[in-house]
């Protein structure tokens, strides 16, 4: 792997989250500077900032895109105890000429009394639904009943998790065999010996979310969780970022009777566990087809994990800062500085002797 491009993000403080839109042509960044920026990729692969605006009155923790079926919609959550929904509107012609776009705040969700730590849209087959979780231990599920009117959101469910929540992940499966399911992680360090990952499932009869499972083996603070795409399998795969990286397999057990209205019970198996980050792991995320899992930890590295055709997991790549001091002036000259040809170290495994060094350079050529 190699750094193909470096872009000066021009945020005035730490970036907390970067999020690609569904098609990978747009990017949103959010920061402690209380703003969100939207970046658009041109046909020649350059990224341009097309919008930047103040979104909250505190650090913005996460930013996420709605599915494009619902238009160009973003949600953000912040230390200021709110989450917000933003919609891009087709702007005036002079805006277009300047390559800028307009984002309008459609709603502010103010139900939380503490910092809103995560915000996620539900899978699109459930409609336009937004979920937040907060430090006060509540997961809230909102719905926009009229997808043409994003200023109306109704609070559909409030799930009390009894633990300070740090992260949520929806099970993406759209199979009828799988009711809507959400996993919640907690970084509560006041309570020990409690499972820090809870799984809630929607019950068609009671129309409520009920706890289906607690991963009792995860008692350390959890910072991130991610369901893998289902791939048509009967079981679910969940990655957890805690003091290490863990991958769980959740196998639904057959219900005792067809009429049983209780939540699904699962057989929980650990598929893999990696402690190479040495300490806390902060983020986990799957690629599109879940052939790769990436994790970020206290060692300052992003590690890539891959299973082979026999389900053996290995670390296949590491991304790490080069340790050089941050160049404070880089962002001041323009909104995007293209650092271009910064090649990674040559692969140790080239077929023919010294072929690799030059080959890495080859990859920098535009396609």
């Amino acid at each position: 792997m190699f750094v193909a491009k470096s872009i000066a993000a021009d945020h005035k403080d730490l970036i907390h989250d970067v999020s690609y839109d569904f098609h990978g042509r747009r990017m949103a960044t959010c920061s402690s500077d209380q703003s969100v920026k939207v970046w658009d990729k041109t046909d020649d692969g350059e990224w341009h900032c097309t919008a930047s605006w103040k979104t909250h009155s505190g650090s913005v923790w996460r930013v996420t895109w709605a599915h494009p079926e619902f238009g160009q919609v973003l949600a953000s959550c912040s230390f200021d105890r709110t989450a917000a929904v933003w919609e891009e509107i087709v702007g005036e012609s002079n805006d277009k000429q300047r390559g800028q776009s307009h984002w309008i705040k459609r709603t502010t969700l103010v139900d939380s009394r503490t910092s809103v730590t995560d915000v996620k849209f539900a899978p699109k087959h459930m409609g336009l639904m937004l979920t937040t979780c907060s430090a006060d231990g509540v997961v809230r599920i909102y719905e926009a009943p009229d997808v043409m009117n994003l200023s109306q959101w109704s609070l559909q469910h409030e799930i009390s998790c009894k633990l300070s929540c740090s992260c949520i992940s929806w099970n993406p499966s759209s199979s009828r065999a799988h009711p809507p399911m959400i996993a919640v992680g907690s970084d509560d360090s006041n309570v020990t010996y409690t499972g820090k990952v809870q799984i809630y499932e929607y019950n068609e009869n009671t129309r409520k979310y009920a706890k289906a499972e607690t991963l009792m083996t995860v008692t350390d603070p959890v910072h991130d969780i991610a369901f893998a795409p289902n791939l048509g399998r009967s079981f679910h795969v969940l990655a957890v970022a805690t003091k290490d990286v863990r991958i769980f397999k959740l196998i639904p057990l057959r219900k005792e009777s067809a009429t049983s209205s209780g939540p699904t019970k699962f057989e929980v198996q650990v598929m893999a566990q990696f402690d190479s980050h040495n300490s806390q792991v902060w983020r986990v995320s799957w690629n599109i087809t879940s052939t790769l899992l990436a994790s970020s930890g206290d060692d300052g590295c992003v590690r890539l994990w891959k299973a082979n055709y026999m389900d053996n997991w290995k670390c296949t790549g590491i991304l790490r800062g080069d340790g050089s001091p941050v160049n404070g002036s880089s962002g001041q000259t323009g909104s995007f500085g293209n650092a271009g040809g910064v090649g990674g170290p040559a692969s140790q495994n080239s077929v023919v002797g010294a072929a690799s060094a030059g080959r890495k350079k080859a990859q920098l050529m535009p396609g």
Partner: protein
Amino acid sequence: MEEVDVEPNITLIPGVDFRHKHLGFVWGPGDIVVYETNYTEKGGGPGGSGRPAIHVVRKDEDIYSPILRKLFNESHHIFVDLQRIKKDLPSKNKKPQFVSISKNYRSVIRACMEELQQIAVSTQDDSLSTQYGNQISILLAVELIWNLCEVLFIDAAPAGTLLLHLLDWVRLHKVDVDVKAREILQSDSPTKHPAYWDLVISFVLQGRMDEARQVLMKQASLQPAARPMFSLMDNLLHKMPIFNPGGTQTLTEFDVKWRHWHEECDRCLQDSSFASNSHLETICKILVGDEDTLLEQKELLSTWYHFLVTRLLYTHPTVKPTDLHHYAQSCMHMFLGTRNALEPLDSILLAAFEFDLHQVIKDCSIALNNWWFVAHLTDLLDHCKLLQSHNLHFGSNLREFLVLEYASGLFTHHSLWQLAVDYFDHCPEFGRVYLELQIERVPLDTERKALKVLRICEQRQMTEQVRSICKIMAKRALRNSRLGSALSWSIRAKDAAFATLISERFLQDYCTRGSFSDLDLIDNLGPAMLLSDRLTFLGKYREFHKLYGEKQFTEAAKLLLSLMTAKIAPRSFWMTLLTDALPLLEQKEVIFSAEQTHELMFCLEELTSEKCDPNPDQPMQDEEVESTKIELLRLALARNLANAIVKEGTVEA
């Protein structure tokens, strides 16, 4: 792959302090974006250093090389052809087909290599030419490995023929002999050329006896005194038996014959026939397979596998496939020495000689950072049923795993993704799901591209993806106020709610502008009209306008009335419809019958009785306009009723 015990590669991100900061990341299409962050910051105050950057990290795949793109395109055709070979044919009949498929793959590699060579020569840019050079050397290695696998696994030649194939393999990949030959033979006096004897020996090392004799003749003619010695050598070279797989000779007969020849060579050496010419003596020693002499030719042999093949040619020409690994190992050690660490290419070739398919595939996967080679080779080997026979019970998993990896890589490219579709189609277990996940992420930059993606999904009955694409396109068109496009996309998506919404917009536009846009579309809705009530109304209402325009007043009037009586028109639109009836009522000719007029009056009364409460939001002026309109309508209706009664009475009488 599982036994990969190499350390994972570290990619350094410039300007990021990994000791005090964290590295945030997000997956993108074909890349991963990283940025400096700090996950322990929980407060609201400013906590970080300024000016953070985001870095796009890409996997170094060859898909961005324009020349290699040809390799991907053309091998795709071969792959598809291979999948079409019927599974039920007995494998004996399929072998020639597999060999020809394998050759096709290799010729695509060679074509690519030649093109790269041409560009590498013509380019002025030094770094570009080294880059091409590196790509060439990788392709060379790939072709070399593939060729050997073809000989050993796919063609699987028996003893005798095996060595002939190996000789071809060595000759094909050691082309510098031919270059040298051309140079020497075109020089003024080839025999005086310093590399003359090297050439002769090179020919002999490759078993190219006729060519060796031709070159040797030139020397012989210059040394009349040594002529007997030269003709003795010529005779030995000429007489060397070569196995003819198509002939009637059995392997045993060949072996006997070859032994006789070998003994003859040995005798010549014993009685010092060539003692006066060291070159000829060397050649004779090669002919008897003298190890030391062969090893002295390291420079000319250049590789251990050339040494192996030459050594087999002059010591064990009937080598059996199962004995190959033994010779391969010893030759490699003799040639390279035991201390040197093996290059990946050496261990891959050795694994092939050991018939360890799994190891070959594994080592190639590690050594090459592109899945092209392993995916195609493994697929071919799997078709040959070779993975099973090599006790790899997960053979088809391995094939599918590699093909999925390769195809997923293609999907990150803006045009090559279309090739990947066929690869996914031929992965029975996960191909479909992978395709579903990947194809919905293809950016729908233009309507044309959207239609292309849509067709692929439709062909495969991916109803959810079809719906989603249409929905996205409809939403986007509406955002850009392209109502016609939005409507046709939502009809394709069978999205009733959205079609209703867009129909409303059409009707609103009509009310404000008095005309319809996108007439072509609305006129040709056909059965699609039934998707939503509002769309049905839109279509029918437009039909009314058409009839009216064509002066088919009776038909138009009937339709207009039915829109209200059959409750197709929304109540909010009734006043507009009644106003539309006005000009029909005012015609000289009676159009609405007495009964129809009654119905119209009933509709008007229904509408006005609902509106008895004055609407506080409606300004007085509007209300006045409204009441004037109602009065006008009432008058026109009454007048028409009178006319109709008179007319109907008259006709009956």
